[in-house]
């Protein structure tokens, strides 16, 4: 499991490679909060290379979404495969997040 962060225009793009679970979610959280502190406002998390997400991973996404909103920023998610989509639907988190099918769509949507 690893995260790669890069910037595309004024958007911070995070790729989650592997699982997003209790063992590594703090790392994702810290990385995004660091960028938020630096003044970044637009965040895109791309799940095209993600395996599975557990409830604590979902919890971190919820927490980040709140923190980003509080700073007047925006968070988008992209590239959830069918299994991950099901996970968001089961928990109704698909109603909380702005989810784009592709990275391009997500980038355009800011």
């Amino acid at each position, binding site marked *: 499991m690893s995260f790669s962060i890069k910037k595309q225009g004024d958007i911070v793009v995070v790729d989650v490679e592997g699982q997003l679970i209790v*063992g590594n979610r703090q790392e994702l959280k810290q990385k995004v909060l660091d960028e938020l502190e630096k003044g970044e406002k637009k965040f895109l998390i791309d799940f095209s290379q993600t395996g*599975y997400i557990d409830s604590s991973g979902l919890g971190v996404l919820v927490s980040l979404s709140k923190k980003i909103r509080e700073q007047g920023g925006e968070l988008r998610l992209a590239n959830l495969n069918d299994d991950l989509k099901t996970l968001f639907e089961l928990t109704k988190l698909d109603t909380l997040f702005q989810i784009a099918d592709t990275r391009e769509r997500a980038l355009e949507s800011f």
Partner: protein
Amino acid sequence: MTDIRSRGEDAAPLGELRIALEVSIPSDVRYIERVVEIVRSQCMAVLFAPRHCALNVPVALSEALSNAILYGNGEDPEKHVRVRAQVDDEQLVLEVADEGTGFDLEEETNDPTQLENIEREDGRGLFLMQQLMDRVERFDDHGNVIRLTLKRGS
């Protein structure tokens, strides 16, 4: 000559392939991913549906393991979590045992889809186990045990 491409002999009939796995880990969440990977490959070996192997089993098992490590054993490095996985052509039965005193399964299961819960960071673990498995049971056996059952056809 045309391009010939053939699959090997048909996969073996499933009947009678029985697997029992027992894994013991210390109370450290960093072990979770590896244990899940072992059980997932077991699940694939008996040809469970791809979705079961990629979503239901990994997520439900991760949840049970985190809870056992964090709540049941309080991350005490002296305490262990034991996982038993039994698979046959009908179902997968997972048992996750910790050294804690147990809890009230019904009482502790939240509905995270309620409006007042949707922005909570926690409280989705037991709910997801219930959603992703056909049966979730809890019982005591020298500690707390969660039993998750997933039927092949479901």
